[in-house]
């Protein structure tokens, strides 16, 4: 590939964030949006079966994952959530 093409492609590529140092023992804050009828019911069943999951995962029940709106995800990130998990 010639240099000129390479440099325009580089310019077009979105800037990539430098990876941050992960402090020792750091756990991400994960928010799960789960559909009432499937994923949330599965999580409920897991509870009944006394299966445990990490305390850094919080679940929000939605009537359907179709109810998920971009702004819910953005608000979660704004409030310091590190990862959003959608299950439905």
């Amino acid at each position, binding site marked *: 590939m010639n240099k000129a093409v390479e440099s325009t492609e580089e310019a077009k590529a979105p800037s990539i964030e430098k990876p941050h140092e992960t402090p020792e023992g750091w756990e991400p804050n994960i928010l799960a949006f789960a559909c009432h009828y499937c994923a949330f019911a599965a999580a409920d069943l897991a509870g009944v079966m006394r299966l445990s999951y990490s305390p850094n995962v919080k679940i929000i029940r939605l009537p359907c994952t179709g109810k998920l*709106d*971009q*702004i819910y995800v*953005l*608000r979660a990130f*704004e409030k310091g959530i590190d990862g959003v998990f959608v299950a439905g």
Partner: protein
Amino acid sequence: MITGEQKPFEEIWNMVKDFKKVLVFGCNTCVAICHAGGGKEAEILASLLRMKASEEGIAIEINHNAVERHCEPEFFQPVMEDIRTYDLILSTACGVGVNLLSENIGDIPVFPAINTEFFGAVPRAGEFTELCAGCGNCILHLTGGICPIARCSKSLLNGPCGGTNNGSCEVSPDIKCAWVLIYDRMKKLNKLDLMKEINEAKDWSKAQGPRNFKVKVLEEIKK
């Protein structure tokens, strides 16, 4: 309806980064339908800008609000007192809205968050197409209801040109040749004889801005 698309995020960020209190102000009519500048999009944009500001370590208060229209003062007047407390209004309305709000708000800048494009039809949800360019002197009765000003790449009044290519325009295979559409339509309407008539040069003065008009009856009533 008026169509538009949101500007690239970096361009918007560069507009707002030097202000301290910014309102992302949405318009819930045309630009909401094209998912560019309604209340929902204004809220999303405000959230993205807040995250960008925190990432850059810059303190800006960024809020959002929306009214039904920015192109008629009666819709934004009720929130005027509140929006005057900001030092920048980032409007997601079309250019008409940005102009009108600028004229009414006093010494607060109003910046555009979207690129206003054309007034268009919505043949299917999420799809917008330009069918009329608002030339001020309509000739659709001569062209089978298909506008050669908006839909022919050269706005030819007598077409097609030599570049017409099996129904497509020479500019792009994705553009239908407006004059082929006109021909087919005229054929259906049994009006092909009209195609032989030369359309004379239009009065383009009516297509030039700034344009305005007043409804005569209302003017009389006001008197």
